[in-house]
């Protein structure tokens, strides 16, 4: 266990996906905050996380505050990889996701 637990912010429209991803990541030793509110991603009221898992593309990479944040696109689109690349995200996790893939991808970027 790392001395300081990494914090991951998960933004997703679907409450069930937020719920299950939170539990999966918490089981894997991360602190998890979830949201479906775009404002959270603008203001970060709880401070900046160590990694963002987003179901939408946001121009976060162009903001000074968030440009160094690792961002993973969490998408059901078959072309998620392409979309993630185009949006300047650091990586992607395709939905429906394989748990090992999710954990490996998060671990690689956090």
């Amino acid at each position: 266990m790392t001395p300081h637990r990494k914090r991951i912010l998960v933004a997703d429209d679907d409450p069930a996906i937020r719920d299950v991803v939170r539990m999966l990541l918490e089981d894997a030793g991360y602190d998890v905050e979830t949201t479906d509110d775009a404002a959270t991603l603008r203001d970060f009221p709880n401070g900046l996380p160590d990694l963002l898992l987003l179901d939408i593309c946001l121009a976060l990479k162009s903001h000074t505050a968030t440009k160094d944040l690792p961002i993973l696109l969490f998408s059901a689109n078959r072309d998620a990889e392409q979309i993630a690349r185009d949006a300047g995200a650091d990586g992607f996790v395709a939905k429906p996701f394989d748990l090992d893939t999710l954990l490996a991808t998060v671990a690689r970027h956090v």
Partner: protein
Amino acid sequence: MDDDAPPLLDVHDAATFLAVHPNTIRRWAQANKLHGSRMGTRGDWRLPEKTCSPCSALLGTKGERFVANELPILLDWDTNGEPYRKYLDFVYEPLFDANDSPDGLMCFGYEVTEQVLARQGFEEGEERFRTLADNIQNLAWMANPDGWIFWYNQRWYEYTGTTLEEMQGWGWERVHHPDHIERVVAFVQEAWQNGAPWELTFPLRGRDGQYRWVLTRAFPVRDQDRNVVRWVGTNTDITEQRTLEQQKDQFIGIASHELKTPVTSIKGYTQLLERRFRNAGDERASEMLGKLDVQVDKLTGLIEDLLDATKIESGNLLFQPSLFDLNALIGEVVEEIQRTAPRHTIVQDLAPVVALAADRDRIGQVLTNLLTNAIKYSPQADRVVVRTERRDGSVVTSVQDFGIGIPAVLQPHVFERFYRVAGETRATYPGLGLGLYIAAEFVRRHGGDIWVESEEGTGTTMTFSLPLEHAHDAGNERGGGTR
């Protein structure tokens, strides 16, 4: 009517000039074997009034030659009492005495009924053709063997708001969409050369400036020597069908995308539980959840197939080419499928390392679809063989099973969308009928080819070839939006 029927000839003196004498007609009719039961009993013959007046007029005046063409004569001698119509060409030739005064009339008549009826039949046919051609909902056209259009029906002019002068020959190009004209021209140029019936869809501009999609069907009319003498074509408005088709594809697209959301959380919870039970040492529960996870993956596969079919149809298929080792890919796919198909042994007979520039995921999907198909349709067999070989700048991959086989008549259909081979003894084999369709489309859009060899009861071999040299050109090609 006999061809050698004698002409009608009569000579009148001045006193009887008014018309052809009844006896003359009778004699003529008898000679021509036109006997009727009532012939002669009532003297039932008549000439239209107008023939008499010019006769009298010409004789009453200077006496000029008078010619009457195709003069109808009604002869009431038919046993049903129906007037019997004959046509004669008449020449009334005045006769003159020594003082150049008209003193008689020579009448020469020749029957032309057959010619007249033939021409009327032709005109009627022509009229019927025009009525049909101008009143159908389709636009219609006719062209010379080289494609020079010489006729359009009325609907064409109404729809396009053009005239024959503007449209004849190659004028149609003006009512085509600039984005499509090149494709259409290239296609029809080949079609005229080819001489085979053809079909094509394209947008066509209406008089209101709006484009509507039409389906053109053309077929060649040939002479006895099989030479094309002209082309006949129709254009059918398919805008409505296209819209519905697009709505259907859109719907399937949205529906499958929406289905992915709950499937994602179901798979998530399944994996969460599987892991928790495993960590708690409950092997049985963990195993069951593993099986549930496999089923969720199958469900995901079906949804992905629907999405892929929709993308193929709408032309939104994107390829992400990369250079990869085909044998390694085959190894991965085989390993994964072997896990779910323990009854079959998947044998690999592969040519030495082949580097392929293509969309690795999509080619993997092709292999997956062919392999799952081979296993599905060979339930009694215990073996499936994957082979690769290099052949003329291509790599040829085949998947052979030893199953039920496909009857020859059905083989041409196996790569069609929604096509499924029905089982004989058991219920139909499960699936959406999309696997081979998707595989075939992926292969073709990589510039490759796919085919099937099969014998009933012996087994099936599905083979696809991919070009090695040009494979990198297949990148990000958008599929044709039209078929």
